[in-house]
């Protein structure tokens, strides 16, 4: 201890402490950051199949196999349907960029036309859920919002949070936020169950109910005002507590400092 005390004031001490702290932070992050390998999944349908096949051979086959049969890097796409392709490629999840606990949403790199061709090709490999048409997911009935809300709270809120903000799953996986997600993609996710999300096929959740859920999600994440002011992320009491401490108590203490401080004297002593 004596030795340590003596060297505390060494010019390099601060640098050493800084390096140690950085190494510790980085090390801790590396230790805790989820590094599990992605279990990318995916999908397929019929027209311009050849065009789709060509695109597939260039962009997808290295993981999913030259005929979509799957490999150690990616699952088989036989029978995943066009809905899965449209969702995975349309939300930019596919092609996957780097291994991680989960393949994240990112800007898409294919045009919708190319996605449709890919979907056509994959659909040709085996039957699967078909990408929906706008009338299937665009609701016009205002009652759909509240009905969808109830369905959402039963089937979806446990992972995606009451306001569709997403939430944590095990070992670094997560249910993504639904903010800014296209209605079509929400619908397709329910149809196909991408990655770790379970599917909600039409046999257990009919089209009409999917449309209601989409209506609720779109309303909540887009149109719904926040009457009380800042939503603080719609994450529940954790962010409220943080806000209360920093801006509530913080402001009050700042004011208390002003109240209790001595007024400046006329002549500085």
């Amino acid at each position: 201890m004596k030795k340590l005390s003596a060297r505390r004031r060494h010019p390099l001490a601060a640098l050493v402490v800084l390096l140690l702290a950085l190494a510790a932070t980085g090390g801790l992050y590396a230790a805790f950051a989820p590094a599990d390998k992605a279990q990318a999944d995916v999908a397929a349908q019929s027209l311009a199949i050849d065009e789709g096949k060509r695109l597939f051979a260039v962009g997808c086959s290295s993981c999913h196999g030259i005929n979509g049969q799957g490999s150690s890097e990616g699952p088989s796409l036989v029978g995943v349907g066009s809905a899965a392709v449209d969702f995975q490629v349309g939300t930019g999840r596919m092609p996957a960029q780097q291994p991680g606990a989960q393949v994240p949403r990112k800007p898409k790199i294919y045009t919708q036309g190319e996605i449709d061709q890919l979907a056509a090709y994959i659909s040709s490999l085996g039957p699967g859920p078909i990408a929906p048409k706008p009338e299937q997911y665009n609701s016009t009935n205002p009652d759909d919002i509240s009905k969808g809300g109830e369905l959402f709270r039963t089937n979806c809120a446990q992972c995606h949070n009451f306001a569709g903000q997403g939430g944590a799953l095990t070992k670094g996986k997560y249910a993504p936020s639904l903010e800014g997600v296209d209605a079509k993609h929400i619908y397709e996710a329910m149809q196909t169950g991408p990655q770790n999300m379970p599917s909600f096929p039409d046999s257990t959740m009919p089209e009409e109910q999917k449309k209601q859920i989409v209506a609720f999600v779109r309303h909540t994440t887009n149109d719904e005002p926040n009457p009380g002011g800042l939503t603080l992320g719609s994450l529940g009491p954790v962010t409220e507590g943080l806000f209360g401490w920093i801006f509530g108590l913080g402001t009050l203490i700042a004011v208390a400092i002003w109240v209790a401080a001595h007024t400046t004297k006329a002549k500085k002593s």
Partner: protein
Amino acid sequence: MSSASSTTTGAAKPSSTRANPANKWEAAADWTDGRLGIYSLAKANLRKIFPDHWSFMLGEICLYTFVIIILTGVYLTLFFKPSMAEVVYNGSYVPLKGIGMSEAYASTVDISFEIRGGLLIRQIHHWAALVFVAAMLVHMMRVFFTGAFRKPREINWVFGFLLLVLGMFDGFFGYSLPDDLLSGTGIRFMEGAILAVPLVGTYIQMFLFGGEFPGHDIVPRFFTIHVLLIPGIMLGLLVAHLILVFYHKHTQWAGPGKTEKNVVGMPLMPVYMAKAGGFFFLVFGIIAAISAIATINPIWAYGPYRPDQVSTDAQPDWYMGFSEGLIRVMPGWEISLWGHTLNLGVFIPLMIFPLVLVAIAVYPFIEGWITGDKREHHILDRPRNAPVRTALGAAWISLYLVLLIGGGNDLFATHFHLSLNSITYFVRTGFFVVPVITFIVTKRWCLGLQRRDKEKVLHGRETGVIKRLPHGEYVEVHAQLPQKDLHTLTAHEQNQPIELPAQADENGVARKAGALTRTRAKLSRGFYGEGSQIPKPTAEEHHEITSGHGHH
């Protein structure tokens, strides 16, 4: 009471002997004094001295937010219906149209959307509650780290502690009332926790809920507890707390002219009436403004409670967060004994929860016993001058923070891209390790600051002026501190560890100290022994250095 003499001796006379009042205000005061004795009361208090320091106003934040909560709470009771009868919502909030819900939930949605200003009052009530508990905790920490809990204030410390605990629970009951999806999940947790109590758990659960969860009684029952029972007790404790603050007079920081036998500051009338009275309006104004700009507890978005529905991010308000952390990181232990089940995964956290709180509550008595100090203390300790106490307090806070991280592990996972499981493992380890590390670091830090103070006293303040000496050496000029600073920096006491009684008495008969005495002496050495304080500079040392020459 002083006027009592005039009234009793004047029994034969029809009127008081007091001189005629100068105006009608004085007359009114005389009238009141004749009945309530206000002059004697005011004599002691009107010009009562309060010291100025921002940290002495933390308690006022608690008091004022409590008043705000009561005012807004009364307003809310005018519209809230504490009933679990089912109604179908048909108000203006579209996403709930046609949904079945309890009257409690429907009336809270109506307060938010149909009653003008109802949303604002709800938000003020809830924000004030969050700040109330936060301010109580910070106030308690201020008292802790400055040693203001020492004799004669230990009982007031306990009153304050009880207020904190009651405030936490009243907040939890209030959070449970609207019967939304989040609050219902909280009540469900409470049910599970009660069921984990061995032997009587199921009975308590049935009696509390009036049958099986959730039943139709829990909201009305919590309502009574939330608006009447707990606030009533709190009000009583609050009054007692304030009476004791007045009676003991406020503590003060060391400084020129400040002693254990006086209190230096400005009088209640007028300065503190204006400052403290004004501060109430400042607090209320700030909370109102926050309620205008930030949503709290958007119950309309949560939806009505149904036991088969849930939203992720299911957390209690922050003050219950550390207990949430305990519950979340506890391994799932469960033991079966003769056909009975003991759910340790819930029961152990349920037992640690009060222990965490009680640990801080009993600290003044433990410190008093270890140090054997029986004197009154009115001059505050600077935290650095009580390194062991400060380190213990910091360790407690670090434990609290680790548990808060545990309570929010899912949000830490999503927002820092970490694994939920790793955070839980970290908290499990951190629960034991972090307080120890914090203790060691804080203690060393305090000692470092003591060394710096000592250096400042002996060598003066660094002026930043660099001088070149004739032989070429560069030195920084140090300036002697003025005497008031020297006094302030050396005003603290340095206690010595208590000594064990001599091992042999005067007759040479061996006398062994009991285990308790020996523990106490050991702990006392830990508090005040060699490694726990830097000896204060003495006048001789100071003299030697200042009279020496060429020193800088």
